């Protein structure tokens, strides 16, 4: 049973959980959103600062389990500094991994620490935890950026 758990709770996840990156709410920002996981009550308030098409900052205040906290930290690492379109691509890649029920092999070049979440995809009840802040980020970024800008770049 420990193996099972270890597949879920990778060291990387526990590290991010204990020492989350980019935590806190900062200025400036163009959009702030508040997302909750209705099932368990986990919450995140998240701000996005986009400057000249680049995700310049993601700041947040979040309450939740190790998976959701670590996922928020990894997400911030991954998207900060990236052009919006590229960041959206990473979001899509992470989404595909999470919805793959454990059958998708993650690409470390794209997802970096995010590959540690491959094990989460086998625990359907935890997928929502891992996705909470990614969904919040996408929502906020879509608000922060004029929609046709994102759309056209996404192609």
């Amino acid at each position, binding site marked *: 049973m420990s193996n099972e758990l270890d597949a879920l709770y990778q060291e990387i996840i526990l590290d991010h959980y204990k020492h989350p990156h980019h935590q806190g709410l900062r200025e400036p920002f163009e959009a702030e959103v508040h997302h*909750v996981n*209705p*099932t*368990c*009550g986990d919450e995140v308030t998240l701000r996005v600062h986009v400057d000249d098409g680049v995700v310049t900052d993601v700041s947040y205040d979040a309450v939740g389990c190790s998976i959701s906290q670590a996922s928020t930290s990894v997400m911030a690492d991954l998207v900060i500094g990236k052009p919006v379109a590229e960041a959206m691509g990473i979001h899509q890649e992470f989404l595909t991994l999470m919805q793959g029920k454990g059958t998708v092999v993650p690409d470390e070049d794209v997802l970096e620490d995010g590959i540690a979440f491959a094990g989460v995809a086998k*625990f*359907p*009840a*935890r997928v929502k935890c891992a996705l909470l802040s990614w969904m919040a980020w996408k929502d906020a970024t879509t608000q922060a950026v004029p929609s046709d800008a994102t759309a056209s770049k996404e192609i």
Partner: protein
Amino acid sequence: MDGLLPELDVIRKDFPILERTFDNGQPLVYLDSANTSQKPQVVIDTMVDHLERHNANISRAMHQLGAESTEAFEGARDKVATFIGAPDRDEVIFTKNATESLNLVANTLAWATGDLAVGEGDEVVITEMEHHSNIVPWQLLTQRKGATLRWFGLTEDGRLDLSNLDELINERTKVVSLTWVSNMLGTINPITQIARRAHEVGAIVVVDASQAVPQLPVDVAASGADLLAFTGHKVVGPTGIGVLWGKRAVLDQLPPFHGGGEMIETVRMDISTYAGIPHKFEAGTPPIIEAIGLGAAVDYLGHIGMEAVHAHEQAITGYALEGLATVPGLKVLGPLEARERGGAISFEVEGVHPHDIAQVLDSRGIAVRAGHHCAKPAHARFGVQSSTRMSSYLYTTPSEIDALVEGLEYTRSYFKLG
């Protein structure tokens, strides 16, 4: 006989109750499927397996049993969505029966704001052949909101009188709600044509598909309906489960129905926010086992194929119409062509009251329904209080129809009718 299901004997073996014989030695001849259908073993076994091995509450439970239960429940939603051609699985709302589905719509419309709101001067249109479950909710809505209830009348041969279609459905019409297949007359209504007119004037279309989903291949997206209701126990599924399908755009506009667990996003003492569809309309612990049973039921029907089920029903209905025509004094209410009707046939026999007919048939093991079949206005339209109704399904055999016809002959002789 053309159109009968090829392996009817094998299909009958799937339904344990069909082996039932009564105390007086008579075997069961079940001709009351429009009232409720019988259940194949696979539906029963699926429910039992879940109860004995996987039972847990859903969504909220994160443990293994909870995950298994959630997967089975949400899997049933996928199956139903596929079965009725729903473009989006989240558009499938689980209710307790068709009646709740229809009331859900009428009740949320009562509190709706914006385009969907129903108020003074607005009109709701139904038909004279509706089941009470598609009449009373609209009476309550229109009475409470000061709107007007109007309805299509019926022609002598039991069809909708569409001569005043354009007047009846007009700029004031907010909702048109009608049955796809009548549970009393058997009539199949031209819902797509009526929906077209309703959409022209901006009304939403609610279809009561309680008798259609069991009998016809149903494609909700092509039907013209904005919202569509049916009930699990008539599609070889269990009681306690119904379905409301609706277009996302319409469902999203409606306010929540019941308040409680599962339908919320967040709750504070002073105010709450709500989840998206389907959960917004599924407050409380849903009928979990029942949804799973329904999933197995639509799988079963899907496996046989609804085209084949429909052909079987038409063959049996045609044979029954022929047989009934040989009984002196018998008059069928509704269309006389099998091709234009569903498998429920209501009739009168001169000189014997429907209860007495049903009683005599019952003494021979033949189960039919006698009464108003929850369609009092349609009975009133034809000047009768009640009728006798036989209704077949995919397990009905021609020899069961023969037994019915013989039973009716016997009834006439028992009551000494010439």
